């Protein structure tokens, strides 16, 4: 059975045609989203002279040093001093500048959290926090550099906007949108290369999740690097007869409640997939929404209550339960629960009710 391209939206044909392979992303073009930021901020900076870039001695790693080469007077490297950088960004914003402050997610959201909360979010200043090494994407560096909590932490701060692009195309659009948005905004990048998923017409709008695959039996709501794995999972599940919707929830906050509640109504079961701890992130946000409006069966894929370790990115996320097989397993589980929950009464469209997937033990 080959892939049916008509159920996909904004996904590049090169990606779609490989989705039923064992290793669908082996030979597709990839880029770490941190580098997409470094490219986009050059264009944003050229278009808007109020944009300034702040770094804390990891500009070589994020490649914001290129902004420094192009606009030396608008680039400020604070050295290894994240707390000073964040509060200084707040000060700049009070004067009308639009600072993009860059460091790794652990340092942006934890080392400098008090500054981020009290000096940036409480006064609702127009500071953009651009953090690399989000989730457990920085494999080899190990737990101290793996920002597995950044989304949860940023989500719980009042006045926050939290953006997590899945690929470079959507990331660049997000940077433009953040520059235009008035108020604090946090964006989290991958350290490791992730597939270029989208065509140029991908419609990025802050707070508007994107349905990238149609489906009627269940929905996977994903963000960051797990969007790609969710597409692969959906295609594997299609072989078992399940029609799976996939939503790229690139803005964790504000959550696109409408799109998610619609998916809940129409598909009756939801899996969330995030490279972030399962506490307080996407799984929590969706669960909170469903429990108040439409408590259907739901499963969460995410980093469990543990720290990860050093290793190559793909090996680490597999060991810690985040890649395609785990999303497939969660989907099978939620499908079985859905059957029991609705007792066959959930309005479903299609023709292949008889196939009930068996857990693979993957």
């Amino acid at each position, binding site marked *: 059975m080959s892939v049916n391209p008509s159920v996909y939206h904004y996904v590049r044909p090169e990606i779609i045609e490989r989705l039923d392979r064992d290793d669908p992303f082996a030979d597709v073009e990839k880029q770490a989203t941190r580098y997409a930021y470094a490219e986009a901020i050059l264009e944003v900076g050229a278009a808007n002279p109020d944009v300034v870039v702040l770094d804390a*001695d990891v500009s070589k*790693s994020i490649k914001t040093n290129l902004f420094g080469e192009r606009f030396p007077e608008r680039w400020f490297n604070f*050295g290894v001093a994240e707390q*000073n950088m964040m509060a200084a960004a707040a000060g700049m914003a009070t004067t009308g500048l639009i600072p993009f402050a860059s460091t790794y997610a652990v340092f942006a959201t934890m080392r400098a959290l008090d500054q981020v909360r009290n000096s940036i979010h409480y006064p609702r200043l127009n500071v953009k926090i651009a953090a690399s090494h989000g989730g457990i994407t920085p494999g080899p*560096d190990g737990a101290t550099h793996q920002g597995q909590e950044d989304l949860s932490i940023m989500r719980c701060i009042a006045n926050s906007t939290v953006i997590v692009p899945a690929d470079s195309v959507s990331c660049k659009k997000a940077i433009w949108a953040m520059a235009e948005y008035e108020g604090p905004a946090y964006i989290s990048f991958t350290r490791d290369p992730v597939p270029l998923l989208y065509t140029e017409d991908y419609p990025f709008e802050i707070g508007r999740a994107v349905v990238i695959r149609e489906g009627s039996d269940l929905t996977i709501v994903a963000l960051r690097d797990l969007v790609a794995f969710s597409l692969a999972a959906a295609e594997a599940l299609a072989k078992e007869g399940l029609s799976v919707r996939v939503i790229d929830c690139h803005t964790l906050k504000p959550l696109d409640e409408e799109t998610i509640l619609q998916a809940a109504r129409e598909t009756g079961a939801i899996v969330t997939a995030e490279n972030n701890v399962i506490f307080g992130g996407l799984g929590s946000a969706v669960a909170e929404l469903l429990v108040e409006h439409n408590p259907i069966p739901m499963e969460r894929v995410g980093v469990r209550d543990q720290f990860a370790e*050093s290793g*190559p990115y793909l090996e680490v996320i597999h060991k810690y339960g985040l890649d395609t097989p785990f999303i497939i397993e969660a989907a099978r589980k939620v499908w079985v629960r859905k059957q029991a929950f609705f007792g066959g009464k959930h309005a479903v469209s299609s023709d292949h009710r008889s196939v009930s997937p068996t857990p693979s033990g993957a």
Partner: protein
Amino acid sequence: MSSDFKPMSVPELKEMAKIIRTDIIEMIHEAQSGHPGGSLSAADIVTALYFRMLRVDPENPGWPDRDRFILSKGHACPVWYAALAERGFFDKAHLRTLRKLGSILQGHADMKKTPGVDMTVGSLGQGICAGVGMALSGKLRGKDYHVWVVVGDGECQEGSVWEAAMAGNKWHLDNLTVIVDKNGIQNDWFVAEEMPVDPLNDKWRAFGWHVLEIDGHDMAQIVEALETALTIKGKPTCVIAHTVKGKGVSFMENVPAWHGKAPTTEQAEIALKEIKEAA
């Protein structure tokens, strides 16, 4: 302390430092990831500590009365792992597993995974604060162990380093010695241009510390300074060690790009040859 270990002489330490440098290059080359520059700049200092100064017992890494060592600039942990392995804390075979899945040798040192590592590090500017805590505990409990901390000069940009410096002065922590690996380079660029920290010696002095300044690659000077630090009473000591980032490998020396980059096989061969043939 295991009986067969004898503190090394200066010529022996110099030979050992070559072995440590060899391990560093082999380890980072095998991992194809890691931080050679700051590992090599600290190699002579860490060698002097582990093979002459530290009262530690590889057979009993948790010995409560041991001296403590913290590499606060935790990204340079290959130098730490090399010293621990050569000193017998674990089998040298582990060095080849650096940064791989399941390894006891994490990308940044992890006290729960590696025998002999006294503190988990990796987020700059925290190891030194943990050192203050260990020194305070030593005072409280009347222990005579000494706490040794190595920090980077880039790391000295973190405010928390100076919070630790204030505390060391307040509590007269003469059981604490901080060695600044002053190699002049941080991740992005040269410290003096990116965010100047000089005059470091005056800063530490103004914070109430006894300050010594040495050539961090002259083994005799290192040993003399570390031994002097043990004799200073009533205040903590800061040894400012002037070093060269990438020391011992010509193409890495003083080049910011070698902060966090692994050598290719060809580069590693040249590096190992240079280390072997060095005086």
